[in-house]
């Protein structure tokens, strides 16, 4: 800075008024206020597709495939004997689809209605295990943050 002032008589620019600088040079009245501000990335927003996040795309595909497969097998085994699976094509497909998707929601709840407490406990444990796992992931990414090496960057814009 001292070198600067032997070269120039005045500076018209964005120079912050500081006590250490004011000892050596004279400042005009401030034309803009200044302060230290911290900038952080905005908080993550939850999207409408949040419900798709728990499983990966592959998992969804496999789940869909397994459902269709089961639907087909059930239809194949039943359509000779079961009158519900007879009739026109549309009815057959409809019944098979309904059976498969309803099994996702109703079948096991019937099966386990007696020990639904067990299921709730299982679900809770599973949730907490997964939560703890995700916390660990975050802290390890902080670790990688810390081990980052400094690099040099080209200077294109400077302010004093």
């Amino acid at each position: 800075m001292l070198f600067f002032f032997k070269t120039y008589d005045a500076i018209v620019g964005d120079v912050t008024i500081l006590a250490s600088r004011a000892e050596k040079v004279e400042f005009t009245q401030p034309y803009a206020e200044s302060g230290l501000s911290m900038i952080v990335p905005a908080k993550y927003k939850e999207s409408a597709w949040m419900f798709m996040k728990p499983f990966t795309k592959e998992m969804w595909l496999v789940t869909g495939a397994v459902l269709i497969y089961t639907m087909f097998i059930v239809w194949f085994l039943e359509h000779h004997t079961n009158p519900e699976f007879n009739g026109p094509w549309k009815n057959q497909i409809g019944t098979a689809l309904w059976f498969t998707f309803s099994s996702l929601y109703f079948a096991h709840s019937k099966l386990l209605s007696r020990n639904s407490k067990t299921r709730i406990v299982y679900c809770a444990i599973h949730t907490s295990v997964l939560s703890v796992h995700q916390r660990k992931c975050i802290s390890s990414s902080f670790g990688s943050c810390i081990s980052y090496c400094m690099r040099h960057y080209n200077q294109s814009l400077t302010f004093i």
Partner: protein
Amino acid sequence: MWLFVVLILNSSYTASLASMLTVRRLQPNVTDIEWLKRNSLKVGCDGDSFVKNYLRNVLEFKPENIKNVSSEYSYEGEFESATISAAFLELPYEKVFIGHYCKRYSATTPTYRFGGLGFVSS
């Protein structure tokens, strides 16, 4: 067998959705300088400015956690590569920055005030 598969599928879906939502809540939003120091996260500032010395001497950040960012337009890349967790800018530059990237970043209100910007004569 099928019922068992469906049970596992259903409960892991519920569980992981719940855990994802929980972790998002727990994740602290960086608004606190003490929190940054405690976790020794990297912060970015202009290396040519007095802000760098200010961070080191007054706010007592460790020198290795202060990262020089030479251009105002480089902060975006630094944030995206998770090189820095927060950036410190002076108020006028902060206004320009937020004006440029309005929605993706948020700025805390400045608690540390300086004298302002002025013209210099010897």
